């Protein structure tokens, strides 16, 4: 089993969700995060004082999946999240040892 984690631009979330839904992904977890990559932050000016906002708002999407579907899922996220501009985000895959469905106690692939 794998965990696909993506950090994307907030306004790309709907596109990513649609793309995953089209693949038949049954569930995903979304959180609001902040950070920066190569695009750094931006500046804001209040009453003549300049503030550098270093951490920009991003969305982190997490999907648990079977190993067979990993590449399709990664491609779907990358395709939907890409605007071509700096700051589009990253996607990475990590291994998962165990998954349990809380309601039934099912484990492993059955719990996905």
């Amino acid at each position, binding site marked *: 089993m794998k965990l696909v984690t993506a950090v994307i631009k907030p306004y790309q979330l709907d596109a990513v969700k649609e793309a995953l839904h089209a693949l038949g992904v049954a569930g995903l977890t979304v959180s609001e995060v902040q950070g920066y990559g190569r695009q750094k932050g931006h500046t804001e*000016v*209040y*009453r*003549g*004082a300049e*503030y550098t906002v270093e951490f920009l708002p991003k969305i982190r999407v997490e999907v648990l999946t079977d190993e067979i579907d990993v590449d399709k899922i990664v491609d779907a996220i990358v395709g939907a999240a890409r605007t071509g501009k700096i700051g589009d985000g990253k996607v990475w895959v990590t291994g998962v040892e165990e998954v349990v469905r809380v309601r039934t106690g099912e484990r492993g692939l059955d719990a996905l």
Partner: protein
Amino acid sequence: MPEAPTIDSGNTVWLLVSTALVLLMTPGLALFYGGLNRAKGVLNMMMMSFSAIGLISVLWWFYGFSVAFGADVNGFWGDPGAYLGTKTFLAETDLWGATAENPSGIGVPLYVFMAFQMVFAVITVALISGAIADRAKFAGWLLFAFGWATLVYFPVAHWVWGGGIIGGDIHALDFAGGTAVHINAGAAALAVALVLGKRLGWPREGMKPHNIPLVALGAGLLWFGWFGFNAGSELTVDSVAGLAFINTQLATAAAVLGWIAVEWIKDRKPTMVGASSGAVAGLVAITPACGFIAPWAAVLLGIVAGVVCALAVSLKYKLGYDDSLDVVGVHFVGGWIGSLWLGLFATNSVNAAISDVVGASDGLLYGGGLTQLGRQALAGVIVSVWSFGIAWVLAFVIEKTIGFRVRAEAEVEGIDIAEHAESSYDLSPAGGGTGSAFAMAGIGTPGGGATSGARPEAESAEPVSAKAAG
């Protein structure tokens, strides 16, 4: 034989409405300042305004009104016993401004005039709080508010409007509070900011406004209430009230344009904080002048005030004082601009009371020479020096006795939690854990309360679904 006193219903209604309008400005100020402040100090900032409503209203009834508007004793204060809170006045016959020849005065009950002037005292004290964001002990603030109102606002209101030295002897003009309110509060704000020192991390750390829609809402309420402040200050319903009203709108509108123009050129983008601040700067500047200048001069004044105040708010970074929310840059500077403007543009052609009542002259541009400009400057200097001096001493004494500045840990953690044990925003679905309410109500331990609280919910879910199934 003099006629019997009669109440003028037009004047009385307008002053009652104006009083309510001006009162709304202080909660408006709380929102304006609260939005400009950081999220961890919003409530303390708002509390300084709301506590000013509480404390100053009662002081005003008790002795403040007497000191400000009692019969002049020596040019410095009014007879403190004149309207002492222990006295009761007959609403039908005790009318403001009544004399033997004119027993009706302006036809407004004494209590209505007292209430109208009360809300001015309230907001003047509240204005100071913007300079000391996130670092003043609440008890220290209350003590300061009490001392400053007593030694500064009440006497200064007497100097300016109660027949004291500024209005009565110097013949300086101040329609609604350029000297008495804005220069006064601005000078005190600078003094307290200096005594308390800078916020930890200022100006290295970013301390940007946490909620700009609140700033806009606060500025809007201030603008709305300011019609009562300015047009109400005519005290009667007449053409000068109309002049003050239109001038208030014109100068404020022009100041919005002036402020955002500076931002657009200097900082590349016009901002909502700038538009809101420009509105307040315009309102401040037109305050002393609204009933004494022609509308074209009000437009010009608004532009100048918007531009100059937009530049003045950066002074604190150069000079190194942490006037957190720019009370000096907006109120002190704006108050000075409006007061001096009268020395240039005041004209009897819009309001004959300039010479007839106050004994003042036309401004420089209306052939009055430099006389009135000199009077306006002298009045500004007197109020600035007195307010700054007394505020500095008060703040210093409070700091050395009960302590005025909070501990560093409290400031880092956030003054809302440290001084008031509450927080502005609870946006997390978990609510930060609410079990302690059970503990305070004496129902089990916090942990036990949370568990037993969840159980009945699960049980009650069953009958509901059974009913739905049946």
